[in-house]
């Protein structure tokens, strides 16, 4: 009798523990981006088993692609990547160039591209790919607003990312952010090259990355430079004056975040 009771108690404790760990108590495995300011805000880097969204205006597509390719390069750690792309996105902002990818320091050999005809196919393929733990990351690229990418879809992606530990990166071009279960959400623009003579050589890719949502920490905005040789983000090397506003210091929004999550 007592032993049965004890075992019930133990199993209940186990369940509570599991609920807690899936939320906040247990730190998710994180990968540092390399940019000190961003890593500090993200408490050590991007969570691996989660969904991350990158938004950009239509004409900023290439910058956002570069940024998400950088994130994928950091998160995947030389494991295969699956890039799910909607057909329309290719005509609108160009196909992904393998030479361009290798110029950024990423390996085109580990990339498998899926050309989905529509958003439903893209979502299913992404969910399928996320279940395969041999992958380093899954990137889904979608052009324009879409009804299908709602809270339910995003929740599904989050759950499969959590169970397999494969990060899902959503590249949303020409779209406005909607409520989702993403761990982080970024808005990316291209940043100017450091001032200098018009004929002087330009440098590494520069991103004006704005972290607009962070489930477990504050948000901010940084100018990031992608180091093609080291394959990581960093503070811009030659930037005399900060162009972007200093990161807004907001108190940890864990409490409000929790409320929002309950509401959603």
């Amino acid at each position, binding site marked *: 009798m007592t032993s049965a009771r004890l075992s019930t108690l133990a199993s209940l404790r186990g369940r509570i523990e599991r609920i807690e760990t899936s939320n906040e108590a247990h730190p998710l495995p994180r990968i540092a981006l390399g940019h000190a300011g961003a890593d500090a805000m993200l408490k050590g880097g991007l969570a691996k088993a989660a969904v991350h969204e990158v938004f950009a205006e239509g*004409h*900023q*597509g*290439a*910058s956002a*692609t570069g*940024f998400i*390719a950088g994130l994928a390069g950091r998160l995947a750690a030389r*494991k*295969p990547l*699956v890039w799910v792309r909607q057909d329309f996105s*290719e005509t609108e*902002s*160009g*196909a*992904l*160039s*393998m*030479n*361009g*990818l*290798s*110029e*950024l*320091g990423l390996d*085109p*050999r*580990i*990339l*498998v*591209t*899926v*050309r*989905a*005809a529509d958003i439903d*196919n893209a979502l*299913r*393929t992404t969910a*399928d*790919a996320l279940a*395969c733990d*041999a*992958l380093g990351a899954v990137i889904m690229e979608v052009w324009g607003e879409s009804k299908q990418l709602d809270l339910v879809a995003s929740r599904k992606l989050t759950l499969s990312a959590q169970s397999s530990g494969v990060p899902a990166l959503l590249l949303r071009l020409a779209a406005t952010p909607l409520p989702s279960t993403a761990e982080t959400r970024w808005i990316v*623009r*291209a*940043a*100017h*090259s450091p001032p200098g003579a*018009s*004929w*002087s*050589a*330009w*440098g590494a*890719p*520069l991103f*004006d990355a704005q972290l607009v949502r962070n489930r477990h920490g504050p948000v901010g905005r940084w100018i990031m430079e*992608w180091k*093609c*040789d080291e394959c990581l983000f960093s503070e811009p090397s030659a930037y005399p004056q900060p162009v972007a506003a200093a990161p807004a210091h907001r108190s940890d929004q864990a409490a409000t975040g929790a409320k929002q999550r309950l509401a959603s």
Partner: protein
Amino acid sequence: MAMCKSGEGAQVPRETAPLTRIASNDAIRPLPMGEVKKEIPSVVVIKEHNALVIHSLDDIAARSGLSTGLPLANARAICPELTVYDADEVADAKTLNDIADWCDRFTPLVALDPPYGLFLDITGCAHLFGGEHAMLQIICSALSRRGFAVSGAIAATSVCARTLTRHSSGRIIEDGAEVEAVSPLPISALGADETITKGLRRAGLKTIGDVAARARHEIAARFGAAFTTRLEHALGQGDAPISPRKPLPDYIVEKRFPEPVTTEPMIALTLQNLAKMLVQAMDKQGKGARKLEAGFFRTDGAVRTLAVETGRAVTKPEVIDRLFRERLDALSDPLDPGFGFDLIRLSAGRTEIVVQQQRDLDAHVHDNDELAALIDRIAARIGGKRVVVYLPEDTHIPERAALAAPAQHHLAAASQAAWPARAEGEPPLRPLRLFERPEPIKVPFATVPDGPPHRFTWRRATHQVVRVEGPERIAMEWWQQDGKVLTRDYFRVEDEQGLRFWIFRDGLYDSELIDEDGKPIPANWFVHGLFA
């Protein structure tokens, strides 16, 4: 010696009148016998040499004295009350193809003999249907029920069987009895050219036996070697192979149902069991399937086949089952059981020998297996051409530098591919996003003729150029292009927002951009890619 114990001329010589019209909208549908009144003859006409002539006709029309090839005007004079239909040869061919699909249930070797014949190689198949006689009966009665006029025969050679069907139906000729069977038939049964048939008749040779009695070299001298060969085949002396529509699959398993199945769970269960049987059969010879095909034979004759290809040989029934579930799930027009399927077949079209790999501590092998399995699943759902890997091409032309290849077949090659290495310490020299077709931009007159533009308009937005690098001159491959292809001068430019473009001018100013009189012509500018 392998023997083609067959030749099933399923002919439709008469009664095609209503069929040709119906065939265009449905595969195999019975004749609306009630609609056609018995008294009124009907014919199908086709345009030949600017005149409408009879293409085919029904029994009543034949009794009225009409024949194929007769002009329609003459036919109307003979028989004023005539129902006339236009011939639709495309629909006829489709109907024949559909019947051939249906015949797949008897043997995998079905060959077309246009315009209205089929050959079935039934070697080793007849006993499954209760012997040759019963099999012929089944085929003929099933097709007759659908309203086709059928004439079938079984013989050792295909030409012999076809010759027999031209005259009567239901004959089965034992090996060696061809000469006896074929000899009394008229020359026209051979189906040779009209001029040959007419020539032989004029020579007084009326039956095949008459012709066969003459020395071969006489016939060959007058009518050609092709005709004597045909004659010999018809007499059973030598055989011409038939050319089946589909290659013979390596393994076939099938399940027949006395009571047709209609429900999805039952179909899924059947596929599961068939997958197990197929794997068992392949396993005995250490093979795995690379290409699988499931055929669903409906009771009303319609056949639906679904094919699945895999990147590496499949040896597990669960994998086969899952691939087909994905495929069925993603069909744009779902599998319609109608009144039910009475036969479901699973065949392995291409197999290869599987080398058993020992799982060791090297997880890399395992990872690749999982990735290949994932690619197979995605490809089964959305199509193999939509899952691609890129292979480097040996060319300087930027839009051809990478070749998209189906991931199922080229995964190993892609992971070994040698891409041009980047220069250490350099910023990216090639754009991240590349337009397949360079997009034209509007450029106001550049200050320096060979220089970059100060601003340009692309997609109705004007960009002010702040920073430029270049030019990088890329000459086109003159040894491959036939026409004149211009050299491109590429510039990497950054606009005031920080967006980075890869633009080029098509042509060199002094040498290429001049007209015949030597006057300069304005250059075209394009944006080819976008940098991160």
